[in-house]
Every structure is written in C-alpha cells, then in structure tokens.
C-alpha cells in the first residue's frame, strides 16, 4: 500500500495488529476507505510473520453477498499479493463460476476463495469437506450489514459455526457499514468467540445533500405527480455532471423517469440507460461496464444498483422520492465520489411537497449518523433443516454434536430439545404426526449413528435447490420476431389480456401471446400500463419516522433553519388554520365531513405497513362499539377510516380505542393472519425442501412432484397444525408483516401523547394525500362464510334450468 503512496488508516493498522494477536472481530468503516484491506492485509502480514502456522491449501474464505463484487475484489486482492511478492492465489467460486474451474478447484483449492453464503454451503455439502477446510485460518463476512437481518445471514451464521467446529482456532472477521445495532451485529457474527474486538474507523465520508425545490408550494400535495414537474431541474444537473446515477424507489418509477428524461431532452437518446431487476442480465452487465468506462451520461436505477462495484466516473447521484430510510440514503449517496476524501453529493427530488419534510428529517439523521437497525432473524427452521441436509451430504453428522453447533448460533440459541427433535424427525421420517411415514426417504441414520443421505437423487435435488433466495415466478419477455427483452413477474403478465400494452425496459410492448413461461410481445406505442409492484413501495423506517415527527413539530418554529421547512411555510400555515400541527408529544386526529361521508384521519407517522395494521385494528375496535363498515387508506404519515354514516366518537373514546391493552389479541382478530401466513409459507416451503423449484434432467414424472406451497400449507393447516414450519410462517407474519415490536412501541408512544382532536369541513395538507391514495381497501371483520353470503348478491345468480 505504501508503494502506491497511500498511508494506512488508523483502523486498518489496528485491525492488522489485532489479527496478528489471534483476535476475531468486526471492522466498521464507510465505503471507499479500504475496509477490504483492513482484514485482508492483516491475514497476509500474519502469514509473513508466522508462515509455519499456515498449512497448504485454502487459508482464507471471503464471503460477499453479491456475485458482482467478487470479481473486482479478487483482482484487487491478487494485485496486492503480487505486489508483496507472495505466491498465493485468489479465486472466485459462485453460481457464475465455470464448471471446469469449479472442478479444478475441487482438486486444488486456491489460498484465498471468494464465495457467497450459498456457494459456501455447497462446499460444506462436498464429500471432501474436511480436506477442503483443513488449513483454513480465517473467514471474513464482508458487507455483513447486508447479510444480517436476512435468511442469508442465518446461512452465514450456520456455516461459520460449522467451520468453527471443524477448525477451533479459526479467526472470524466481519466487515460492515454503520448500522443502528453494531453490538448486536458483532454478537451474531461471533456468538461463541471470547477473544474479539470491534474496530471502528474514525474517518467519515462527507455527504452533501442538495434539495431541488419546485417553483411553488402545493398546498394540497398529491403523492407522486410532482416529481415529473421537476424534470426540467434534473436535466441541467445531469448535463453538468460527468456521469449520474438517478435512483427511484420502484421499477415503474424508473421506467417513467426514463421516458420523462428522453422527452425533456431528446439528445439523451443513447446516452442514458435503465437498470432494474427486470432488465435482461446481459444488458445490465453491459450498462454496468459502460458506467465504469464513463460512456453513459446517466443511468436510471432502482435498488438494483444500491450495492456492487464502484463506478469511478459517477460524480452525481439523484434520488427521486424519499429513500424512506437513512441507511439506504447514505448508501446511495456513497455511490458518487469514491475516493476517501471526496464529498458524496446527492440531489433530492421530492415527488410531493410533504416529502420535503422527510428530506429535512433525513438530513438531521445523516448529520447525527442515526442509522437503522438490522434485526437478525431467529428460529428460521426452514434454513436449519436445509442446512442439516446439506451437512448430511458431505459425510453426515452425529446428533449431539450438531445440536451443540446449531445452538451455538445466535439464530438458534433459544432452540429447545423438543424443537430440535422435531427437525430431526422432519428430515428422517418426514414429520412427527401419525403413522404411515415408512415411505419417506430423505435422511437416514446409518450403523455408525450418523445422519446421512443415501439416495443419489435426493442429494442431487438438494444441491440444486440450496439457498434461501426465493424469487417470484418470472416470465421471459420476448419479441415474436425473436429477441429477448427481460424478465417480468408471472402475476403481472397473468393480469394482462392479449393486446394489452405495457412498458418494460423503456419500450411500449403489446402482449401477443403467452406460452409456457414466455410472454411474446411486439413493439407498440401509445398509452400503456407501467408494471407496478406492490413490494416496491418501501415503508418509512421507524428510525426516520422519529426524525420526521420532530421536523414536523418544528414546522412553524421561526428559529428553524431548514430550508425545506421554510419553503413549506405556506403549507404549514394552512394546516394550522384548518387543523393543527402535532407537537412531538401530541397525536393528531382529524375528523372531516364531506359530501361523500365521514373521514377520520390519524397520523402516527409509522410507515405504510404499520398504518395498515393500525387502521384494521381501529376499525375492528370501533366495530365492537358500533356496528360499522369502513374503507381504509393510508400512506407513510397516517391513515384514514371512511364511512358513509357518522360514527359518534368523542375524544375520550379515541383514547380508549388507542389503548395498548389487548393489542396483539385485537390485531389478530382484525386481520386475516392465515392468508398472510400462507404468503410467508411460500418461501419457507421452498427453503425447507417442501416445494422443489429445480429438478434434475427432463424426467417425465417431474410434474408429479409439483405442488404449490398453497396446497401444502392447506394440508398442514388441516392435518399437522403444530408443524414448526407452519408455526414459523405465523411468527414471520407477526415479526415482519405486523412488525409487532414497532407496533407496540407506537402504541406506547401514543398512550403517552396528548390527543389533539380537530373537526373540519375541508381536507388539510396532511389528509389530502391519504385521501387520494389509490390503494384503498374496505374492511369487514366477518368470517369467510358471511363474506361469501354477502358476495352472493353480486356474484351468484339463481340456478337456470338447462
């Protein structure tokens, strides 16, 4: 490093030192400060100091969450090794790796191997795994913050625990960006290691946030349409930059902005490109290469470009709409200005005027480095049973040992013996209920009392389906004249009729026919549907919502300095005239009577998902007091209950309705948990091997093994309700969908707040965007039979005699 004229940073030196003393640990550093070389050079230095401690073969395993990162990283590592003059080799092994290379690696492994969590598990499924890892000294989990909080994180935990069992002296290091729960992140990574340290870089990346203001304030903001008016302010920013990344939150937004920019500045044709997960992978690769070489003026991207290799020419980042979270915002800002001392500049384009409050909140959060937490997942039985089978493939395990390894992981530290036995039963006899399981063939216990897989076909199916990323069924989109455009979710296509037009990859396409998993289209023009993906709507993070409430409360503070809040002054004035601006210890309820009916708006500022649950809950609680039916609507700031008859509610009753008591019981009663769990079960069924996505060969009876997760869910609900995988689906609903901890915290906060209750006859700046939100739903707490009965009026007709 010195030869290149770079001086090592303090955190790098400290890491080298601690590594040399045998520590495990976690490095916390911003992107672009050489965090890779903190641990990597630490290993090299230690090798040069104590070469006799290192055996031949694989010494360092480097886990990266993204395949695309591995290639560049391995090049940089190899360069460093060559410069130092060592004879180590660095290689990549993941899904993209050529079969020949993989075979060569199985015979002779490099000294350093870059893997994904999935390819590491595949190595653990190898018969020779003890040989493969016999000289392993260190494992590094790079971008640990990306893995933590997902099932891939649990996969990593399990692999680390197993490697630690194979090699007790193993040193484990994590590398992470700043997140809200660093201590927990370190504990999850190193649950059983005592000699550990967290090294935090003091260096900080400077981030400058520039807001693009509209010409005037909209007093009644309408979500979504303002952004397009700002396109004229965006074009000059792109023109004066070398290369720009424009981030949107959804694929549909990115398609729209691509069109908008071309219309506003036709010269952009051929100079800008569109990058999202539905774009053909080859095209995406081309775009990424073009970005690196600086031949593209701008790329419109979704989170598909959040991570990954650095694009040196990119000097400007534009964020359209609120990023809804602090971590994501910092990450995106960091995609410009790569060298350590350059400032990352990010332009913010609001899509409606209220989002300006969000940017004021974001600025505050960035300034104070208050980044979201990543909650690690626990008790993911699906991942565990998959891992157990993985280990049986590579030579098997004995149960008591394996129990110690598994419970040594953070994710399974609470595992009971009973649950453990259920999992063993699941992989050996196929479940714990009833008899007639004699035909189950998966894992068997051999004469040495080890759990092994004997059937080749089972082993093959398992290898082909390892991993925890379950994607929606995707359809290829192709021109009838030939030529591939991209991939799109099957359910989107299934809603279209022949002749319908939609936009993909910046082109208007007309659906001609669908055959098997391919949609054939022809080029078209005119009005078309932009595919919208419900999942694309990111909810406001709880971290950001706190800052948002704070900023809003300061809205009319004359001493306030935020330019965004000053700009919004007329809007705040109107809000106060007709209603109120909630202070930080206040909870605002607006009751608005219009010709259409009666609206009740509440503003918890907890994000769309939590609001959806809260609205259902409130509707349920009100229906216990008065028979009523509502339709509900929500955005990230609040929600609306709408009914055509007046519900006579007083301030005191609202306090009662917003009580923290019986919270989860009432929530469970107010939502359709079964339907939600069924959706969660989709992934669980695939991960645990109940639904097989890839089958070897083109065997004729492949189809006979296919059943949708919905069918299996139904069968379990009926015949095996205590199935742990089924229970897991429900707990995922409560932890993720219902965000139980966040919901509880919100109600705690509301209970301590003063309720501000306003009645008015006009929509306020806060209520209007909710009112116009298209995602309306009606609520009814009746059971299925009653609902069908009700529906019969519209759906069923009397039986006509034939």
């Amino acid at each position, binding site marked *: 490093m010195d030869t290149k004229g770079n001086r090592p940073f303090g955190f790098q030196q400290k890491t080298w030192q601690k590594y040399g003393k045998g520590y495990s640990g976690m490095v916390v550093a911003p992107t672009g400060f050489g965090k890779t070389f903190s641990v990597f050079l630490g290993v090299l230095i230690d090798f040069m100091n104590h070469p006799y401690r290192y055996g031949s073969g694989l010494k360092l395993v480097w886990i990266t969450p993204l395949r695309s990162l591995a290639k560049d990283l391995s090049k940089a590592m190899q360069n460093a090794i060559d410069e130092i003059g060592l004879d180590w080799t660095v290689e990549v092994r993941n899904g993209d790796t050529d079969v020949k290379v993989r075979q060569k690696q199985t015979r002779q492994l490099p000294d350093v191997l870059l893997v994904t969590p999935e390819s590491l598990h595949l190595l653990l499924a190898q018969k020779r795994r003890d040989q493969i890892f016999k000289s392993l000294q260190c494992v590094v989990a790079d971008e640990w913050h990306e893995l933590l909080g997902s099932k891939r994180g649990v996969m990593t935990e399990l692999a680390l625990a197993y490697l630690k069992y194979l090699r007790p002296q193993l040193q484990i290091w994590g590398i992470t960006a700043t997140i809200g729960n660093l201590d927990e992140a370190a504990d999850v990574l190193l649950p059983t290691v005592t000699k550990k340290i967290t090294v935090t870089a003091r260096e900080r990346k400077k981030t400058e946030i520039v807001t693009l203001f509209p010409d005037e304030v909209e007093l009644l903001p309408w979500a979504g349409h303002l952004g397009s008016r700002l396109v004229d302010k965006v074009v000059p920013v792109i023109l004066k930059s070398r290369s720009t990344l424009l981030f949107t939150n959804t694929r549909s937004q990115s398609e729209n902005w691509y069109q908008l920019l071309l219309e506003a500045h036709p010269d952009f044709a051929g100079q800008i490109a569109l990058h999202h997960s539905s774009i053909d992978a080859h095209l995406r690769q081309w775009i990424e290469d073009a970005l690196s070489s600086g031949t593209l003026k701008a790329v419109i991207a979704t989170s598909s470009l959040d991570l990954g290799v650095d694009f040196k020419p990119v000097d400007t980042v534009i964020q359209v709409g609120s990023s809804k979270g602090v971590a994501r915002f910092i990450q995106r800002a960091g995609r410009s200005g790569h060298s350590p001392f350059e400032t990352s500049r990010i332009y913010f384009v609001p899509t409606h005027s209220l989002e300006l409050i969000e940017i004021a909140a974001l600025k505050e959060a960035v300034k104070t480095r208050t980044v979201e937490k990543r909650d690690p997942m626990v008790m993911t039985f699906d991942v565990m049973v998959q891992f157990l089978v993985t280990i049986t493939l590579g030579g098997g395990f004995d149960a008591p040992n394996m129990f110690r390894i598994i419970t040594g992981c953070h994710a399974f530290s609470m595992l009971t013996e009973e649950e453990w036995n259920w999992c063993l039963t699941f992989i050996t006899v196929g479940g714990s*209920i009833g008899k*007639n*399981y004699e035909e189950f063939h998966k894992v068997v216990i051999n004469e040495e009392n080890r759990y092994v897989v004997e059937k080749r076909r089972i082993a093959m199916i398992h290898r082909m389906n390892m991993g925890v990323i379950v994607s929606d069924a995707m359809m290829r989109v192709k021109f009838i004249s030939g030529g591939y455009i991209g991939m799109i979710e099957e359910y989107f296509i299934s809603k279209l009729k022949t002749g319908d037009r939609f936009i993909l990859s910046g082109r208007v396409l007309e659906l001609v026919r669908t055959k098997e998993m391919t949609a054939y289209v022809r080029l078209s023009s005119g009005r078309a549907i932009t595919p919208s993906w419900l999942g694309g709507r990111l909810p406001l993070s709880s971290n950001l919502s706190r800052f948002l409430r704070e900023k809003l409360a300061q809205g009319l503070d004359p001493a306030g300095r935020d330019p965004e809040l000053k700009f919004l002054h007329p809007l705040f004035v109107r809000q106060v005239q007709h209603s109120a601006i909630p202070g930080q210890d206040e909870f605002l309820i607006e009751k608005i009577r219009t010709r259409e009916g009666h609206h009740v708006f509440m503003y918890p500022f907890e994000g769309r998902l939590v609001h959806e649950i809260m609205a259902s809950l409130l509707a349920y609680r009100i229906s216990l007091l008065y028979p009523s039916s509502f339709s509900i609507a929500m955005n990230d700031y609040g929600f609306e209950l709408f009914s055509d008859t007046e519900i006579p509610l007083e301030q005191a009753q609202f306090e009662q309705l917003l009580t923290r008591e019986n919270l989860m019981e009432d929530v469970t009663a107010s939502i359709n948990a079964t339907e939600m769990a069924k959706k969660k079960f989709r992934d669980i069924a695939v991960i645990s091997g109940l639904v*097989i996505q890839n089958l070897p060969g083109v065997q004729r009876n492949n189809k*006979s*093994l296919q059943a949708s997760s919905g*069918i299996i869910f139904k*069968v379990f609900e009926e015949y095996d309700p205590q199935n742990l995988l089924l229970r897991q689906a429900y707990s995922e609903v409560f932890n993720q969908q219902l965000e139980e901890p966040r919901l509880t915290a919100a109600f705690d906060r509301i209970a301590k707040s003063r309720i501000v209750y306003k009645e008015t006859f006009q929509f306020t700046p806060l209520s209007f965007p909710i009112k116009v939100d298209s995602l309306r739903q009606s609520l009814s707490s009746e059971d299925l039979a009653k609902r069908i009965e009700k*529906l019969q009026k519209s759906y069923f007709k009397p*039986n006509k005699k034939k």
Partner: protein
Amino acid sequence: MNFAQLPLNFASEELLLTNQRALYWERERILVLSDLHLGKAAHFRKNGIAVPAQVTHNDLLRLQRLLKHYPTERLLIVGDLIHAGKNSEIELLHEFVQQFPSTRFVLIKGNHDRIPDTLLQKIGIHELHESLTVGPLRFSHEPGVQTGLYTVCGHLHPGVRLKLPDRSSISLPCFAVTHKTLILPAFSHFTGLHTRFGTKDTEYFAFTENAIFPFQQKIL
C-alpha cells in the same frame, strides 16, 4: 361433513352435484368422481417431501361416506385414480374395495394412470375403459374430443376465484358446465385449482364445506 347437493339437468337427466367433490346419478345409481390422485402424498414422501399421510386417508374416508350415503351400483372414476406409480397408499384401495361388495369400481383411464392394467385389476378395479357411454352420457378423462355427446369428465381441477372487496381473493373448487361438457372437481384435497378457463357460456357450481351454489364468473 355436511352434505349439500344441487340438482342439475344435464342431457335431460337429473344429476346431483355435491359439495363432497362427486356427482350422483340416481336413475342409474352411479356415483362419479375424478382425479383421486391416490398415492400422491406417498409419492412426495418417497422423494423426500414431508407431506402428511392423513390427506389420503381423509379422501378415502369421504368416499366411504359418499358410498354409504348414496346407493351405488357403479362407482365411475373418470381418470387419474393413481398419481404416480405403485406405493403403499395404492394398496389402501384394495382394502377399500372389499368394504363395498355390491359396488362395481370402474376406471376411465387418465393421463396419470400409467401403472399396468393387471395391477389396477389386482388392487380391485373391476372394469377399465378409455371412455364409457351410459345412456345419453359419455364419460372420459379429458374434455377435448368433439363427439357431439354429452360428456362428463375431469382432468382440469376446475375452480373459481372470488374477488373480495378488500382486493384479496379466495378460490373455491367447482363443477363447470359448458354446452355439452360437464367437468368434475378434483376429488383429492391434495390438488390445486385451475381457475382460468371456460368461456362466457360456462356455468360454474362452486362449493364450500357447507354449501353448493351456482356462480357467475364476472372476470374472464
């Protein structure tokens, strides 16, 4: 189990559609069902997929109750009796047939019924046909063939999808009648539903645990 039935006039014959996934033709004392997919759960288990065996037992239990409820001279299974190959669940049929000595078990072969005829006979199937005509009705596994005859068949696992006001939807199994074709629901619980088929003339008879009713598909 709550029996619900609905009379349907088809080819000038009165047929009883039941919410138990079968059809009863009283004049001929024939009970008709389709797509039992016997052995499917066992087939899954054999391949390492842990599906409870109760699902099969329940299907057979339902059939047992039907046969006790409706006097049946002939049980017509219009295809896909067997899901895939021979396994322990298939043997269950042998025992089952013994319980009903006065009923003839007739199979119209479906695309899944690939095990040898001799084996089918061994497990208790009395008669095997590619298709069968009784009075004005023709029984076959798949719809398709234009014979001009009134046809009763299965194969498709028909279902209807109801959109609920809150944007969610539920699917229910059904009988589907288009002109001269009557499609039966799949008898086995361990099957999916095919909800995107039919023409605007198709009439649907959907059912739940407790009821069966005519249904008008609005969205096609």
